[in-house]
């Protein structure tokens, strides 16, 4: 083994320096690990891959109702909701721990839309009345939410928001809306007097048309929502719509990153198990460096994504000013990790890997769903660098 050169040591020394800070506790706490472990046990029992597959193969459903109920009974929906609003009053890190396990199990439920987006939006911008009315229902699993922003291909921009609210009535179209096919309420980005605002819309009201969409991931639902003079209630400050939407996206990005890390870990495990049990030319395929190094690369990306997600979790929990940058880093890293793990897991499985009957493609589909639902990695890279410029300028 060649020893370390001086350049290297210098790099390491400097790196240690940049790593400075007080950090003595950069991991889940014992309590959080216990919660995470319980969540895994629960999901291993209640959400084996067969459950996901049944949603995949059933064109009529986009989520597993009984799993949704069971998750509600666990109190996870309200994990990060204050006790006064019927939640457990835990912190953001606890929710991250749950998210990682949900991602591992590919849980086919509208958890992200309801909790990461709508509940976070309410906590962030809701009036006491709005919180008191909706958060307890969300915590109890009585209400499914969805977050409706874009209307066409491409990134979310102010100019792209055509939906209009006039005198409290919403008219326009949102597509795609994750879980819009089953949601009870929607947080909608629309313009009132030309200024973007967030609105709370009950989907059982007049003028709501839903069209279920065919997507790459049938284990999660999506819809086109059309509104014609539908009653809409302002959420947050007038004209703050874009800023609020971005704040919600930042929080969701961190939580989604944990789901992605969980999914990427599971894909790596699947590849590893196959590589250990599949023989070619009289050897385990896992004994070939082409496979060994492929899996090592997956591992590396997963660990980088996990570390970036941890920092995001801290920023989320501490409500730190670093959140926008930390969220962008967590998202970019997690999108890359899950996509890479999912596609190389298929490759590791060879011929079986691209058959419908083997589970690989379910991870591949979910990697795209999670990678696009809060906006794609490309847009988040631009956000990240913009944040970097601000920080360097400061």
């Amino acid at each position, binding site marked *: 083994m060649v020893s370390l050169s001086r350049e290297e040591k210098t790099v390491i020394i400097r790196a240690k320096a940049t790593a400075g800070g007080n950090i003595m506790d950069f991991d889940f706490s014992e309590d959080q690990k216990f919660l995470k472990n319980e969540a895994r046990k629960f999901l291993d029992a209640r959400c084996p891959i067969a459950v996901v597959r049944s949603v995949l193969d059933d064109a009529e459903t986009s989520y597993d109702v009984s799993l949704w109920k069971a998750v509600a009974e666990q109190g996870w929906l309200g994990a990060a909701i204050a006790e006064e609003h019927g939640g457990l009053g835990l912190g953001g890190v606890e929710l991250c721990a749950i998210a990682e396990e949900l991602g591992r199990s590919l849980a086919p439920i509208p958890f992200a839309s309801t909790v990461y987006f709508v509940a976070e939006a309410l906590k962030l911008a809701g009036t006491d009345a709005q919180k008191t009315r909706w958060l307890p229902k969300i915590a109890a699993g009585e209400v499914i939410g969805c977050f409706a922003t874009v209307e066409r291909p491409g990134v979310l921009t102010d100019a792209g928001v055509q939906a209009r609210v006039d005198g409290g009535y919403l008219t326009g179209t949102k597509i795609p809306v994750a879980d819009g096919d089953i949601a009870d309420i929607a947080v909608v980005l629309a313009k009132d007097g030309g200024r973007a605002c967030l609105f709370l819309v009950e989907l059982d009201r007049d003028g709501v048309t839903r069209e279920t969409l065919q997507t790459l*991931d049938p284990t999660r639902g999506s819809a086109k929502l059309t509104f014609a003079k539908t009653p809409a209630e302002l959420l947050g400050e007038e004209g703050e719509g874009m800023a609020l939407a971005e704040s919600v996206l930042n929080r969701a990005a961190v939580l989604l990153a944990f789901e992605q890390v969980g999914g990427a870990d599971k894909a790596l495990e699947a590849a590893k198990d196959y590589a250990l049990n599949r023989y070619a*030319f*009289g050897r385990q395929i896992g004994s070939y460096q082409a496979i060994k190094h492929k899996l090592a690369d997956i591992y590396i990306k997963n660990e980088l994504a996990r570390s970036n997600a941890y920092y995001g979790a801290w920023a989320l929990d501490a409500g730190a000013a670093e959140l926008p940058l930390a969220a962008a880093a967590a998202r970019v890293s997690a999108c890359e990790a899950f996509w890479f793990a999912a596609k190389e897991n298929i490759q590791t499985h060879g011929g079986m890997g691209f058959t419908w009957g083997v589970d690989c*493609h379910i991870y591949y589909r979910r990697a795209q769903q999670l990678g696009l639902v809060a906006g794609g990695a*490309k847009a988040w890279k631009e956000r990240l660098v913009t944040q970097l410029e601000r920080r360097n300028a400061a």
Partner: protein
Amino acid sequence: MDFNDTPDEAAYRAEVRAWLAANAPTRTGRIDSGMEDLSSMDDARVWQRKKADAGYACITWPKEWGGGGGASWQSVIFGQEEAKFETPGNPFQIGLGMCVPTVMTVGNQADKERFVRPAVRGDEIWCQLFSEPSGGSDVAAARTRALRDGDEWVINGQKVWTSGAHYSDFGLLLTRTDPDVPKHKGMTMFWIDMKDPAVECRPIHQMSGASNFNEVYFTDLRVKDSQRVGGVGEGWRVSLVTLMNERLAIGGGAGGGHRTIFKLAQDIATLAGPATKDSALREKIADWYVQAEGLKYTRYRTQTALSRGQTPGPESSIGKVVSAALMQDMANTALELEDQFGIISDPDMAPLAASFQTALMGAPGMRIAGGTDEILRNIIAERVLGLPQDIRLDKDVAFKDIPTGR
């Protein structure tokens, strides 16, 4: 380097163009739907027979076997010209590209006379039965058992990844006749009648939704010893003849994809402005372009070699490795451009009829079918660069004693 024909070439090309103009359907740009629907199968048979009658099917094969009795440069020219037309899909490729040439090389006289002409004319279609569930890339791991019974053999087992098994008339089948000798020594090749009731085909459902392959099961299939192709225990050597031909078939190349993604970019905005002005996209397009063009010109080099009657260099083996990864990367990039909208796979709603969503789901199969990226890199490293084979633990062991994890 010259794009101009010699007088002979020009004359032949003119003759071919005239014939094609008179006989071939014109290209519509539509991608043929594959042999799953049988009408297009009939079209294919008709077109093949037309070509055979005119001496344009298997141009370099002897006339007495239904070929064109022509030179290799003529077959290159015909290929170039035919490709400009929307000809029916080619279900004969595996038969004429792999199986029948194997019969012609190692089969007995009777078989040659029986099979070559009908195959050339498209009257009979062949499939190749090598891969097995336990084998995958390891063709020599075949376990389908052929037991001698007097003048016949009794075959039991399963094959997989067989293209066109369900519409084929005959198949070239690799079997295990002696498990007590090393794997490469105990195999024997047969031709079989795919319509025999002892042969069952089941389509394989792929993640893309398509079913391009079959599993094929044999239950006490009885074949005559005269159906043997090559000697007993020589199956591996025979299979190499077949696979050598497959290599050449693998062209690859996702030419023109850059145009499509540029089209997509014209209707999309990034956070920084119009996507067509996005240098991150532009540089990727440049990278994809030089790869796709590089493959195209590599095919030109192959065609040049063929037209000079030389065997093409190994450059032909790089096609699929490059084009499959390119397809996957381009599709993923396109979806990132579409952003949230990218998840929609409904051709009536997604941009460009969801072609990038389709490509995304098809790409993983492309990286595996016809030899995985890893196998192809091994082939390049070993056959092209002359690097050592991987360490083999299964060479001098009796087949039945090779570890399988089961």
